[in-house]
């Protein structure tokens, strides 16, 4: 089934709502659009759809629009929405599932946030612990935003707040095994 939106026609995925409920455990049917989630959301000003709208769109099966939205990536993961929801809809679980799916299908709209997560986890897989200096440099290279944080970066280096080299880690095989299992 199709419906018409501003940009043209869009597919409706009737099973999407059920799938989100099953996989994330978020009881999205309970939402009565009271807007508590959106009113308390710190990133709302930067979102293309507000959190309560995303819930409605998931119910309606607007899969593509949800998975290509900015909202799921500019969510700051502060958990205020789910904590305050009068119907205990687990929006945090829902957002996690939406991000996971969007990333897997190559639909992530906010590349910088998705790149950050990939680089962050890549470092963990490699070293077991985060190495902040290389995280920052890799992200800057990837997003071609080289100079924005140079002054504070230099200040942090001088103050001994950034380690130059990652630490050696004995049980790294064990951590890599965790990543291999998660990829299956």
């Amino acid at each position, binding site marked *: 089934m199709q419906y018409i939106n501003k940009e043209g026609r869009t597919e409706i995925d009737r099973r999407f709502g059920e799938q989100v409920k099953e996989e994330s455990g978020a009881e999205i049917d309970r939402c009565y659009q009271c807007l508590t989630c959106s009113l308390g959301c710190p990133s709302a000003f*930067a979102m293309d759809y507000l959190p309560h709208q995303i819930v409605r769109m998931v119910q309606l099966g607007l899969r593509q629009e949800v998975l290509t939205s900015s909202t799921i990536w*500019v969510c700051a993961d502060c958990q*205020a929405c789910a904590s305050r929801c009068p119907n205990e809809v687990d929006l*945090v679980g829902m957002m*996690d599932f939406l991000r996971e799916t969007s990333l897997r299908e190559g639909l992530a709209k906010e590349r910088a946030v998705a790149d*950050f997560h990939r680089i962050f986890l890549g470092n963990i897989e490699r070293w077991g612990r985060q*190495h902040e200096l290389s995280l920052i440099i890799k992200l800057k290279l990837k997003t071609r935003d080289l100079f924005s*944080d140079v002054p504070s970066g230099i200040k942090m280096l001088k103050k001994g707040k950034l380690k130059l080299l990652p630490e050696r880690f004995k049980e790294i095989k064990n*951590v890599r*095994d965790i990543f291999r299992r998660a990829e299956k």
Partner: protein
Amino acid sequence: MSQSAATGLRYAYYPGCSLEATAREYGQSVRAVCSHLGIELAEIPDWSCCGASSGHSTSRQLARTLAGRNLALAEKMEMDIAVACPACYIRLRNAHHEMQSDDRLREELSSVMSLSYQAKHGVRHLLDIIVNEIGLEDLKSKVVKPLKGLKLAAYYGCYLVRPPELVAFDDPENPQCLDDLLNTLGAEARDWSGKVDCCGGSLSLSKREIAGRLVSELAEMAGRAGAEAMVTACPLCHANLEMRQAGVDGKKLPVFYFTELIGLALGIAEARSWLRRHLISPSGLLTSLGL
């Protein structure tokens, strides 16, 4: 006799990645203050990253096992876990909660770690331990240099209070324990409404403009409430508040870790050296108050 023998408080300590780098002063102040208060921290050998927001934003299974690995290592030590970083705290607590209620997840972790994980031991944040195990009475008796005249905004942020079904050592909307602790040290905790608002820390590197706006609003709000500095228990909030704060008329609010202020009030000698690592120097403010 060691001080920990007196309190009997021993924990498997999970420092987390930040406390060895960007939040080095937090790591140093945590160790010094705990040793002074008689809390023994035995670092979990070979601990690994908890996965943080990137873990659970991209793969729930990965998030669970990355955090779970540390729970399993701590269980071998037969102690509850003490965590300093609220972001690590919430990941570890979340994994622990899931493992407790799901046999299959416990078995999966046991097989990854080649041991039998039972999810027996809890996960505590150091603020919770200091306020509820040491107690403010006991803390007060150890204060040698009250932080008189220091007006502060206690900033709790997200993961010390949310989600309330996972973390419940204070009220999720109007927590008090950090305010009470600061007052105990002789400082003045100002009442303000930004206590549990998010600073956008998880977007500090990837979405600078969002983080900058949230941080600057928070600092302004704290300033309007009469605070001259903010206090946090979170390395991500600290870095974000220091790096992304726009400032009002060229003035930025310094940000303290709660353990640094405990160190100052308890007269711990190296406390000054922790503060030298800050990007927004608090030394002018402290000197003006004779601290």
